[in-house]
């Protein structure tokens, strides 16, 4: 790797990289995101590498193992450029055929194409797939263009251009102004204006200032930060260096959950490469500005996503938050001014510097600018990562991009904002998605998890799930959060196990209010949101559990019983094959029955029954 000491060195390097890319080159990209890994993309990639080498066509074909492409549900994904062919669910056995037919003869393999669920039309290119069509992939888009472990790929698509622009054409104050005017707000959850935070940190007295990237993506159901840091780590790093220049920071940390081993590895690789190239360390690009970054690992504590707890964790302490009367921009890591932003926020910075604040602020709504990446998951057909302009409606995301319901059950709500957010009912799906409108309906943007729920989801169970989640993750420092959540959990346990009474909901609401009002940090303050929003929009479900001892969604096991209708059962035996406890009995072609005493109420029989004969009461 060459050491770059000036802007012209960087440009020369870029020209050199681009000159090596041949005009007629075929690029085969295999998605290496974690979702695709679960579907066996590593084997597909290895098979490609082997076949390309064996057939001696490595001069004609460039094989790329990219970061997450977003459409995880359809993995492993393979794309072929320049034709722009999009193959999904590719297996090892398909590799030779792709090389001989598609790459060799230009023939498209119909069986690997995406099929539109409604029109049944086969779609060849990514752009035509409904999942991608309505998206605006500014931040996530480059994941498919580069190999995350190759700095040359990032330089080739214009990487570090924003950094050189900031260092040589702009004063630190101008960089801050640009970010302020762009209207960029923190993507981690609260939506605090990024430029304002930078300015406060720059103005805070002190020689030493720290820059932190928060990749402790603890919100269950959200994984965009993981995909960004895994798939395009240099874009995050470039954002951090620009931020450090604007704020006057000399040292930075990327704090990564240890549950994300690939993100840790790719971030580590990126910092090492950047350091070797002279983009990190002393006198970056010969500008006189010095900055370096280290990787810090988390230990599996949700509360460490909170800035003060995260800082304590980097210091090698127990991750307990502190009261924020003095903000971290004034006194953070080791007591010094510290600017902390989320992965997605940092990745937006190079875009804004390159294309300008006017361009950025032209996207989105009045108070929420740019795009936001959501992880669209749960009971929806097309699951994966979607990047959309702020202000798009929930309806568009869930139905146009997500393709609507998954298995015949009607969608009834979407949960946003993780354990700090709430459930939004289907009647409000025309709501434009931005920071403020989500808060108005009792939820929040959060880091961008969007978990779709259908009629098979019990809202009391979901509320209980979040309370127990937070009870377990509470650091225990302050009483309202530690004890309050425990009691709320007990009340919800009682309701879902048929022991709820008239008093339960009154007490639950009262406790929720106290926990929200008196907890120290954001975890406790927002903890009651999932319960309060569920009560606000789905109260009848709570009442059914309490008064009729019935779970309408047939989820709460204490309140349900499985049986098979004698008249409807065709005796196909599918149910007895899937039953993990062998509770389903019956002869072939004869009506089956369930032994209640050994039935674990898992519902597997109901899921496979084609005759709809399995009943839940």
């Amino acid at each position, binding site marked *: 790797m060459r050491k770059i000491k000036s802007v012209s060195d960087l440009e020369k390097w870029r020209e050199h990289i681009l000159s090596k890319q041949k005009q007629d080159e075929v690029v085969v990209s295999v998605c290496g995101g974690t979702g695709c890994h679960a579907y066996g993309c590593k084997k597909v990639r290895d098979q490609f590498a082997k076949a390309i080498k064996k057939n001696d066509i490595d001069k004609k074909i460039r094989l790329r193992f990219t970061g997450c492409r977003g459409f995880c549900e359809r993995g492993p994904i393979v794309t072929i450029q320049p034709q722009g062919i999009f193959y999904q669910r590719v297996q090892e056995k398909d590799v030779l055929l792709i090389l001989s037919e598609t790459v060799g003869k230009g023939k498209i393999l119909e069986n690997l194409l995406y099929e539109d669920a409604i029109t049944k039309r086969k779609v060849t290119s990514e752009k035509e797939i409904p999942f991608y069509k309505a998206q605006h992939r500014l931040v996530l888009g480059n994941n498919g263009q580069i190999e995350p472990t190759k700095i040359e790929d990032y330089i080739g698509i214009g990487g570090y251009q924003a950094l050189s622009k900031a260092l040589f054409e702009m004063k630190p104050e101008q960089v801050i102004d640009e970010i302020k005017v762009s209207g960029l707000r923190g993507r981690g959850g609260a939506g605090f204006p990024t430029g304002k935070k930078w300015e406060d940190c720059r103005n805070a007295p002190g020689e030493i200032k720290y820059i932190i990237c928060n990749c402790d*993506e603890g919100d269950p159901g959200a994984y965009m930060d993981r995909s960004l840091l895994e798939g395009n780590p240099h874009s995050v790093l470039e954002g951090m260096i620009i931020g450090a220049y604007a704020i006057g920071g000399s040292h930075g940390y990327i704090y990564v959950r240890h549950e994300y081993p690939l993100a840790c590895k790719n971030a580590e690789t990126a910092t090492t490469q950047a350091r070797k190239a002279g983009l990190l360390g002393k006198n970056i690009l010969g500008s006189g500005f010095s900055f370096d970054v280290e990787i810090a690992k988390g230990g599996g504590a949700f509360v460490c996503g909170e800035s003060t707890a995260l800082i304590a964790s980097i210091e090698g302490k127990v991750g307990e938050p502190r009261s924020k009367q003095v903000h971290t921009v004034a006194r953070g890591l080791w007591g010094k001014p510290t600017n902390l932003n989320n992965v997605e926020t940092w990745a937006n910075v190079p875009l804004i510097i390159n294309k300008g604040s006017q361009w950025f602020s032209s996207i989105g709504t009045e108070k929420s600018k740019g795009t936001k990446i959501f992880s669209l998951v749960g009971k929806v057909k097309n699951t994966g990562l979607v990047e959309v302009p702020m202000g798009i409606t929930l309806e568009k995301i869930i139905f146009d991009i997500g393709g609507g319901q998954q298995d015949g059950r009607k969608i009834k709500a979407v949960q946003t904002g993780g354990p700090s957010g709430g459930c939004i009912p289907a009647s409000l799906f025309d709501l434009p998605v931005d920071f403020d409108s989500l808060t108005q309906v009792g939820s929040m943007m959060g880091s961008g998890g969007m978990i779709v729920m259908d009629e098979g989801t019990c809202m009391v169970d979901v509320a209980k799930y979040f309370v127990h989640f937070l009870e377990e993750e509470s650091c225990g420092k302050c009483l309202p959060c530690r004890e309050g959540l425990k009691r709320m959990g007990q009340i919800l346990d009682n309701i879902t196990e048929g022991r709820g009474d008239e008093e339960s909901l009154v007490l639950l609401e009262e406790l929720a209010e106290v926990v929200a009002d008196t907890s120290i940090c954001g975890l406790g303050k927002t903890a009651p949101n999932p319960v309060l929003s569920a009560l606000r929009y789905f109260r009848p479900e709570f009442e059914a559990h309490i008064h009729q001892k019935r779970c309408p969604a047939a989820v709460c096991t204490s309140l349900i019983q499985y049986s098979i209708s004698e008249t409807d059962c065709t005796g196909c035996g599918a149910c007895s094959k899937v039953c993990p406890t062998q509770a389903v009995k019956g002869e072939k072609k004869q009506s089956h029955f369930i032994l209640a005493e050994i039935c674990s109420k898992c519902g597997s029989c109901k899921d496979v029954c084609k005759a709809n004969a399995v009943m839940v009461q």
Partner: protein
Amino acid sequence: MDFEHVGKIIDKYQEKRTGLISILHDIQDRYHFLPEEALRKVASRLRMDLNDIYGVATFYKSFSLIPKGKHSITLCLGTACHVRGGPKILREMKKQLSIEPGQTTADKQFSLNLVNCLGVCAIGPVMFVDGKFYGEMNPLKAKRIIEKINKNKRKNGVKS
């Protein structure tokens, strides 16, 4: 148990206190838990109180002070996995292994862990078994994974 490697791990992080969590991770990766002897060594080299190290080791969920089983079964119970039936898989795993989450089977073969999100939400419910992700799980598939590990064990005889 040989603790020579602990010294090398501490060297890697230049005895820095900021490296504490990473040091503990590396020790756990090597020994499958945090042995007391190793923690004493960390305390002395980092010039920290053993109590503080113990505090960190017990606060963060990733760490264990008791030896883990040979096979690690991690079940994700993030929201997406939860609404798609994660708890049903947990019930099945508890039944198969006769242990509670966080525990290890008496024969030291399996450890069952829960995690609040593995970040593979699109293909939930997800299980992470011995370093491999398994997506779109159901109770039967989960049961088969355990059966397969047991079968391989029998096939390979005493070695495993």
